[in-house]
């Protein structure tokens, strides 16, 4: 099958993604720059302590970072720099934004990756089991538990896990230890509670999605055909039914990935003190460090857009009937 149309489609989507990213960049920029406070505010206490005139010093600092220029000009310069690959200077940490991101992205990445894998593998397996055993006690139990799983506030779950496993049982540290080497068992152990915290909600959601997607397909005629051919049940379920259930699942899983990047992961990082991008952007917001806020928002958005695009392309291989105009 020739997929020449796919290239055009990808190009079109990339262009569209860029426009959306630009829109989000602009909104974020405006929001952080119209705020009443200035990035220089954090020096106020120091300035006052030294007995200098605050307004003069602030003006000097603002002039140094170009904050005294009209907002539109700052915006223009920001975009211009961005196009040349310059992400700006972090005011609160006094380092280039790109360095800051390079330093912290891996913490978010490992958390999100491990949680997604944990949630997807277990969630899908339970979902399949639940669908095959529809209306049995096990099915009812899993359905009920999945309801609780999607309702549980993940930051609270994190606090409870710390209370039980760290404070009471002493099995884990109460805080994520950043000194551990990334690829070590100790690091994996340190990530156990954060992964459960972030993964439980997703897992419960995947159980529900998988169950309903499997049920949608379990009674289709092609399943009877597969059984009539004498295929063993694990091939009927695992290959014939699941391949069809996978289509809606992939969309939902990928869509969730987008929303957890900035929702759940963010809170989980705060609960466990993981120095990921969520933590960094949170601190940046409180410090009025707008280049960092804009950059992380932009990167997050681009990741989400890219994931969506990859999902769409993956779809054309999973479902041969799909053809985008």
């Amino acid at each position: 099958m020739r997929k020449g149309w796919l290239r055009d489609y990808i190009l079109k989507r990339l262009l569209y993604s860029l426009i959306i990213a630009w829109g989000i960049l602009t909104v974020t920029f405006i929001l952080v720059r119209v705020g009443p406070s200035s990035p220089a505010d954090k020096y106020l206490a120091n300035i006052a302590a030294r007995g200098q005139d605050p307004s003069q010093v602030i003006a000097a600092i603002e002039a140094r970072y170009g904050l005294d220029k009209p907002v539109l000009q700052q915006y223009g310069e920001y975009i211009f720099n961005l196009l040349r690959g310059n992400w700006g200077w972090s005011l609160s940490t006094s380092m280039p934004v790109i360095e800051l991101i390079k330093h912290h992205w891996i913490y978010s990445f490992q958390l999100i990756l491990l949680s997604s894998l944990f949630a997807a593998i277990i969630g899908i397996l339970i979902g399949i089991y639940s669908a095959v055993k529809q209306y049995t006690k096990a099915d009812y139990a899993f359905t009920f538990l999945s309801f609780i799983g999607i309702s549980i506030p993940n930051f609270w779950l994190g606090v409870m896990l710390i209370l039980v496993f760290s404070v009471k049982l002493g099995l884990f540290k109460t805080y994520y230890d950043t000194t551990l080497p990334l690829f070590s068992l100790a690091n994996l152990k340190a990530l156990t509670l954060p992964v459960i915290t972030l993964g439980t909600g997703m897992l419960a959601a995947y159980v529900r999605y998988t169950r309903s997607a499997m049920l949608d397909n379990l009674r289709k005629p092609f399943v009877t055909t597969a059984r009539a051919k004498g295929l063993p049940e694990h091939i009927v379920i695992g290959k014939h039914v699941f391949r069809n259930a996978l289509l809606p699942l992939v969309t939902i899983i990928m869509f969730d990935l987008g929303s957890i990047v900035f929702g759940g992961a963010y809170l989980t990082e705060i609960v466990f003190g993981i120095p990921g991008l969520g933590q960094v952007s949170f601190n940046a917001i409180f410090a009025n460090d707008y280049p960092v806020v804009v950059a992380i928002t932009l990167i997050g958005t681009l990741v989400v857009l890219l994931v969506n695009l990859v999902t769409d392309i993956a779809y054309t291989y999973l479902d041969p009937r799909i053809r985008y105009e």
Partner: protein
Amino acid sequence: MQSYSRNNIILRVNDLKTYFFTRRGVVKAVDGVSFELRQGECLCLVGESGCGKSVTALSILRLFDSPPGRIVGGTVVYNSTDLASCPDQELRKVRGKEIALILQEAQSALNPVLTIGDQIIEQMKIHLPLSTDEARFKAINLLREMGIPSAEDVLNYYPHQLSGGMKQRVLVTMSLCCDPKILIADEPTTAVDVTIKAQVLDMFHQLKTKRQMSLIFITHDLAVVAEIGDRAVVMYGGRDVETAPVSEIISAPAHPYTAGLLECLPDLSREMSRLNSIPGMPPDPSKMPPGCTFHPRCPKMIDICRTQEPPLAEISKEHKVRCHLYA
């Protein structure tokens, strides 16, 4: 014409009962059906929709949804094994290998996300000691035999790339690929349009003559029965009401229901103002009328029909009917 003897019976269905236990009550979809399939013949199961003929076909290989469906009685004997009660393991060796089934819904009977080749070959790899290449080669030959042009390409196609008639041929190919002894086809002429109908019938005719296969052909269409069948079992309300050679069914129907079905056929030799139809509706399988299930619609109903189930009456050795008029 009748070259087969009574002895080479290949499959015997005896008093088969398949009930569905739903929340709204028990649906007796098949409620005591008996027939035998002889080597090399084409046996037709005939009846209106809802008479239980499809569930009968599915019950032979235990392919109905379970739960809620369950075989509550009777036997399906093939090769001295009772398929209605044997373990799943054994049944799986029969499915596709000894007895193949072609589903009614040709348009959705193929898995939409797997290639045709994958779907044909996976079955051969399970049942036959073939390598993937050998299986592929066999599939191509079979597809050609079924009259599919450029068979190599078709193996890489997905179902949505095929026309309705092509899908039907692929399904037949799939059912034949492990050389089964028996082929069950559920309404293979219903979903296709009239022009393809003749081709499909021709295809099944050839299976019988060239491959000496034993066919169970399920249809609601007596015209199709006349075309392809050797013997026919007329079903009504989950029971077999009349069993006879097709020629006798057509020329001398015994059961009032069979006679009614025949009258529904448009007869071009006679001038008719309108088509006949049997008055009333087929019974709801969860609320079967007592006595003979056909009595509310029967033009020849007598008192006993209301209360007593009719016994099986033998009109001749080959012609049996379940009706009080012949008891």
